[in-house]
Every structure is written in C-alpha cells, then in structure tokens.
C-alpha cells in the first residue's frame, strides 16, 4: 500500500488485495473509498476549494484557493492530524517524529504526522510512504521538508 501525503492531505492506494482492510484493522483508522484511492474518513467531504474566512470542515480557511486537495491544504497551512481527526494549522504542530534515514530511504515505525519535526529539526510537509503488511514497515521513498 502506498500513502501519499501532500501538504497534509493523504491518499491511500492499494497495490495488492486486502492491504487497505488490513491497514484499517491494524491502525484503527477509518478510511473512505473515493474513485481508485482511499482518504481518511474525516476528510471525505473536504472540498477542492477554500474561501477565506469560511469554514473548511473543522477549520477556517485563510485563503481563497481552488485546485488539488494538497494545494488547498498548502495555501491554507492546513495539515490533517490523524491522531485527533482534526485539521490543524501546520505551524501549530510542534511534535517530533521518528523518521530516520536508512540507506537511500527514510523509515519510521508508523505514519509520520505532517508538520512534525525530525530528530534533526526538519519539518516534514509531505511524503510517499510504502506500507508493508508482511513486515509492518513504513518506508518513505520521498519526503518533503519546509
């Protein structure tokens, strides 16, 4: 399974049968199917536009913007915090993650919260994560920092 996190908005892609259901069972997350991918259930009604001052799910939009979901999140400094099921301001996330460089890739014990910092102090804003249900490993082929 591949997890794309673009500026705090996630999409989950199944690369083999049963990966999503297995991930849901193990993680406890609620996912919702959209076209050929899944999103967090709390983001299933997220619009591809934001209007300054108007509600955007649990948050308030800072900018007028229309485009891809990740772009909407970027322009508003939003990130989705899957630990609380809430959209948060990217700058309000001050926690640290366990992302570590391992050879030519990054690894962690779970999904990295966008907006969080690596032990080296770099703020993560997006990534492509490969989740293996066999080894229960989280391998990151791409990580974007601020």
């Amino acid at each position, binding site marked *: 399974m591949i997890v794309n996190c673009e500026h705090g908005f996630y999409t989950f892609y199944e690369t083999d049968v049963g990966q999503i259901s297995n991930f849901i069972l193990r993680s406890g997350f609620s996912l919702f199917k959209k076209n050929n991918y899944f999103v967090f259930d709390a983001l299933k009604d997220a619009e591809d*536009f934001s*209007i300054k001052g*108007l509600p955007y799910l649990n948050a308030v939009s800072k900018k*007028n*913007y*229309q*485009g891809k979901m990740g*772009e909407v999140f970027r*322009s508003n400094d939003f990130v989705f915090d899957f630990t609380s099921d809430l959209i948060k301001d990217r700058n309000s996330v001050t926690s640290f993650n366990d992302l570590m460089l391992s050879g030519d890739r990054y690894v962690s014990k779970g999904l990295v919260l966008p907006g969080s910092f690596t032990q080296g102090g770099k703020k993560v804003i997006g990534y492509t994560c490969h989740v293996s249900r066999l080894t229960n490993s989280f391998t990151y082929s791409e990580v974007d920092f601020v």
Partner: protein
Amino acid sequence: MSRCLKARLSSKGEVIYSDKVVSDVDILSEGNAESEGVLVLDKELIFYLASSAKDIKKALIEVSKGLSEISTSLDKLDNAGYLVGASGAVPGPPLLTLNINNINNIRGKIDDLKDALI
C-alpha cells in the same frame, strides 16, 4: 479545473456565498446593484460574475412598452387623418398601416425574447 459556485451580490456590494460574505473578490460586472450570479474560482483567482438575464429582461420589457406606445400613437394619428393633410370634416385614408404592423411584429419578437429569458 475551475469551480463555479452560485452566489449573489448584496446591495452593499458584498459577494455572498452560502450566506457568508466572501472577501478579496474581483467583481466583473458593470454597476453595483443587487444581483445573482456565480463565483468562479481557479487557483488563486476568484471573481464574481453577475447574471445579466434579469437586466436584459427588464430592458426588453421597457423596449416593448415603448414600441407599444409608438404603435398606438401612430395608429391614432393615422386614423385621424392628420398625417395625410386632411381637409374639412373628411380625414384622409390611413397610410401607415403596414409600418404600424411592422412595429407590432418587432414588438412581438421582443416579447418572445423576453419570455424566453429565465
């Protein structure tokens, strides 16, 4: 892909979407009267376009009324014989029947256009 959302312009010149005021919007319409229209969003661009159908309909109603007034007046004058230099108590025959009919036909077409607008 851009998005079009149903919106309106208030008498205060504020763009309203979903009962809330939208800020930083370019209003691409003449005048600042109340209107209904659409909010168009595309990346950072956001603008409001008023629907001109209601304004056009109002204009067509006034044009139709004007043509009706012209037609009625000409008809009265024509049948009174003033336009043919009538003398004495005998008015001249109507000479403008065809022209008056043309005016009425045009008015009919304008009314059709008006009725076709929402």
